[in-house]
């Protein structure tokens, strides 16, 4: 049995983290990478993985010194470990729950996704191998994943590269990209979701 103060620390970390902890923490991560001479941007890993698999034979876009970008793959690998640790060792007292608002629970119900308030899971049921063969599951996993990978590279970055790094550096291009992120997100949520779910 671990000493009491360790259990206290684990219980403290296991609470849901408020936005004012998470936001500055993400900025700190960006700073640590800059201090190490790197730029924060997770979606670049997809390009690195393409290049590592030999995509350079098909398009010059994938001909670059990807070995020098190995550090970014390590950040992604760390994120995998972080997800494991958070979900297994620091799960909340009520399990891994998304503490969304009552209004959201109601909107989900109208979409046909029935949950009780306080019981919305962090990860939806349609993130499963079985759901892959249903319309919503296929759309979310295969089409959603494709659009994220295609759009991130087209825009030259994703949430970390543009919304965090780019906006922090006051880059106009990143502002355009973030406007695009929201235009696309709203179109999907309001217009396309009722057709899928």
């Amino acid at each position: 049995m671990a000493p009491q103060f360790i259990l206290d620390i684990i219980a403290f970390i296991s609470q849901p983290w408020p936005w004012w902890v998470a936001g500055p923490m993400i900025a700190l991560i960006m700073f640590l990478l800059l201090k190490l001479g790197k730029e924060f941007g997770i979606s670049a890993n997809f390009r690195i993985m393409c290049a590592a698999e030999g995509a350079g034979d098909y398009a010059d876009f994938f001909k670059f010194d990807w070995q020098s970008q190995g550090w970014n793959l390590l950040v992604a690998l760390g994120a995998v470990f972080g997800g494991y640790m958070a979900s297994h060792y620091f799960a909340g007292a009520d399990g891994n729950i998304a503490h969304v608002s009552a209004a959201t629970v109601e909107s989900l119900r109208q979409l046909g996704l029935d949950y009780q308030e306080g019981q919305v899971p962090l990860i939806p049921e349609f993130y499963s191998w079985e759901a892959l063969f249903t319309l919503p599951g296929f759309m979310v996993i295969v089409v959603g994943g494709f659009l994220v990978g295609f759009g991130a590279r087209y825009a030259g970055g994703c949430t970390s590269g543009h919304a965090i790094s780019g906006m922090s550096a006051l880059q106009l291009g990143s502002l355009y990209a973030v406007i695009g992120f929201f235009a696309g997100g709203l179109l999907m949520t309001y217009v396309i979701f009722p057709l899928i779910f």
Partner: protein
Amino acid sequence: MMRSSKYILIGILFGMTLFKAEAVSWFRIYEMFNFQSFHMYGIIFSSIAMGILIIQWIKRTHMKSTEGKEIVITDKDKHAPRYIIGGTIFGLGWALAGVCPGPMFIVLGSGYTVLVIFLLSAITGTFIYGLLRKYLPH
């Protein structure tokens, strides 16, 4: 080994943060695009606010990286079309998938092996972009 472990530790901190703040949740992204909670906006805005201060501090003090070189933040090119079009496609995917690239890795680690398919789809998307790049407006 020491060099590698630094990046893995940064990744772990990133994964822990986004998981515990519920930013990896499809439902939180849905809530955000429905403007039903300040939570996700709070994360993004406070991160940018803090980020702006950090970048100004780096620039004004000509801060050096641990490799001893001055930290340079590369300016992004200013042609709007690629950001608007690419950004909109990304936004469609972000709302649909409920995960952006970082959370794909984090949710995979939390035990949902089907995220491998998300990643393969995203890598395929990046590959197709690379093939079509010269035909697309930027």
